[in-house]
């Protein structure tokens, strides 16, 4: 018989990720007639962003499209996916995918279906020019994703509601912020941003996660179909490479200048980010942090 699953998004409906996901859902529903249907419930107006993880864990919803930083309350390991240097395809080969699924099952009662955003670095965006990766004296808006890194660079960090970032930039309350290479335009922040620091760091992650009980209870046919469709969605991640190039071009057209350093400094910048990131990851999860590092880092 036909199984119906309920999917929520941790991102608001106007974010581009949601359109990608609803397009995927449309395809699943077209091909899955008689086996599996997915019902898109909506974004944070239905389940608040930071509750999505718990809602999947307890089965209030079946599937969620979310990022690890949003459910660290379920398990701190969730935020480690941003540190992956190996691609999702490789993760399926080298055992990382299985490790993730073991942890997600044990701590979150979740099945990790697929990663649907990768090849997307975070960048530091600034309104003041710097000539070396030293943020001393700069006020940087942070989220937990890169707080440790920016602090390690000497920044004075502050948290600001997303809705206030634009005004805070305009008035100079903050001198910069961290953000993935894309989604700047969704929020109009390009209007109040002067510089982007290249290189980027980390690897923005958005994934589909599913309630484990619900996953196990699916009829075999429906489960195989879901796995196949999720994998197809993940295989489409090459899309982000060209998309991000386009976004960089749009940023240049919007007048955002690139700050970059010499090759050695660039390398040190990225290494510092990874070092700080993994140190925090291992501190938060002495049990699984090192194992994840072994399989996800290069």
């Amino acid at each position: 018989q036909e199984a119906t699953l309920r999917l929520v998004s941790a991102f608001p409906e106007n974010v581009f990720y949601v359109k990608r996901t609803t397009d995927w859902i449309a395809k699943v529903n077209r091909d899955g007639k008689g086996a599996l249907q997915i019902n898109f419930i909506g974004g944070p107006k239905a389940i608040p962003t930071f509750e999505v993880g718990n809602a999947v864990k307890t089965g209030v919803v079946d599937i969620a499209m979310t990022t690890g930083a949003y459910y660290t309350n379920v398990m701190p390991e969730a935020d480690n996916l941003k540190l992956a240097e190996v691609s999702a395809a490789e993760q399926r080969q080298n055992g990382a995918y299985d490790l993730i699924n073991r942890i997600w099952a044990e701590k979150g009662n979740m099945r990790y279906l697929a990663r649907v955003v990768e090849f997307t670095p975070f960048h530091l965006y600034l309104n003041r020019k710097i000539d070396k990766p030293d943020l001393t004296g700069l006020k940087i808006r942070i989220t937990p994703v890169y707080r440790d890194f920016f602090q390690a660079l000497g920044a004075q960090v502050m948290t600001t509601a997303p809705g206030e970032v634009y005004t805070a930039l305009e008035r100079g309350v903050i001198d910069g912020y961290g953000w993935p290479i894309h989604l700047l335009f969704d929020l109009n922040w390009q209007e109040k941003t002067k510089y982007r620091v290249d290189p980027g760091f980390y690897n923005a992650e958005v994934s589909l996660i599913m309630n484990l009980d619900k996953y196990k209870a699916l009829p075999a046919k429906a489960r195989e179909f879901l796995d196949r469709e999720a994998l197809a969605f993940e295989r489409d991640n090459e899309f982000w490479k060209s998309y991000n190039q386009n976004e960089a071009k749009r940023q240049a057209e919007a007048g955002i200048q690139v700050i970059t350093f010499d090759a050695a400094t660039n390398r040190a910048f990225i290494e510092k980010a990874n070092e700080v990131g993994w140190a925090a990851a291992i501190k938060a999860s002495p049990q699984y942090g090192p194992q994840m590092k072994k399989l996800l880092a290069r």
Partner: protein
Amino acid sequence: MDWPSAAWLMLGGSTVLLFLGLPVAFSFMVINLVGAALFLGGQAGLTQLARNSVGSVATFSLTPIPLFILMGEVLFHTGLAVKVIDGVERLIRQVPGRLAVVAVVAGTIFSAISGSTIATTAMLGSLMLPVMLQRGYHPAMATGPLMAIGAVDMLIPPSALTVLLGSLSGISISKLLIGGVLPGVILSAAFVLYIVVRVKMNPSLAPATEFVEYRGWAKLKPLFQYVLPLVSIFVVVVASMSAGWATPTESAAIGALFTMALAVAYRALTFSNLLVALRGTAAISGMILFIIVGATTFSQILSFSGASDGLVSEISGLGLSPLQVIAAMMALLIFLGLFVEQVSMMMITLPIYMPLVQKYGVDPVWFGVMFLICMQLGLLLPPHGLLLMTMKGVSPSQVRMADIFRGVLPYIAMSVLLLVLVFLVPAVAVWLPKVLV
């Protein structure tokens, strides 16, 4: 359950409980429990509901609510508010309905330093009404302007309800706050004009009375001593934002602290009146925040059940033009304003209104300012408007409810005209935020 049944259950059920006399917050919460069990799924859903309730008020964008209310309460309980009236009174020369004009002007100034309509109306009502009645003002003529100006307080920043509207709707809070300024000032000017013309036509409504005409420094002293320094609270709030010291949310805290500092400077702040002000702030903030707990989760469950999307697509399938939809939304708001208070008005309508605003590509600031005007209308609408009740509460017994209803009518008409003006000329609402924010 299909979405129409879900909509009936949630919207209908909460309305029935509301009219049964269950407090607003609990009316939402009872239905939330039923909705969570049905739509979010049994025990897991109910546990999720509890978690969502915590998150609903642990939200930084709501912090200006207590802070703005604190500003108004401190000004009121330290007696500094009275000084504003005194300062304005000395400046205004003989005009028809002079005391009513004084009330409107002082109230407009007070609006810019108080974020609490209740403090403004109670202050003006308790101080000016007895004087006006004693000088032979008709009760309707005396109470009308006092109620009307309390409503203007909501439009002119700081305003706790504007912050709440922005936070719930996702419309820029700073743009909404600035967007309310021009409509608020237009309304005040219209009030003054109306009072003067009306009293000129029928002088018996507000007999011209003798008053001490101050000259020279005595006329200007309270202006410099009290009015301008107090208005500097407004300047400090705006300046801290513009200079890049603070985010809009943080500037509310600076305003509250600066208000207390001024009260200390005037030696008006005592431990006991600070305590009274803080307690009053806790009470009003607590009322609003507790409703938010119930109503935020209500709107989440409504959305989860599919009723929100269903209603939105039903309405957008009617083939109406954006302007027709906006007009219908405003009409429904005014109708709701007859029965329910401002916070519930927002809570009931926003989950449906905002998706429609997005769908039709309507300028959210324009929409938000019209929403504010409808809410301030709700403050004035019989039989339940907050300001009518507040006015009755501070009036001597010779003032009958009928006087209050009659007194407020012209001001309701002017507010409706303002709404029409903003509807036809959106620039009234969106021009200032465009220039300043």
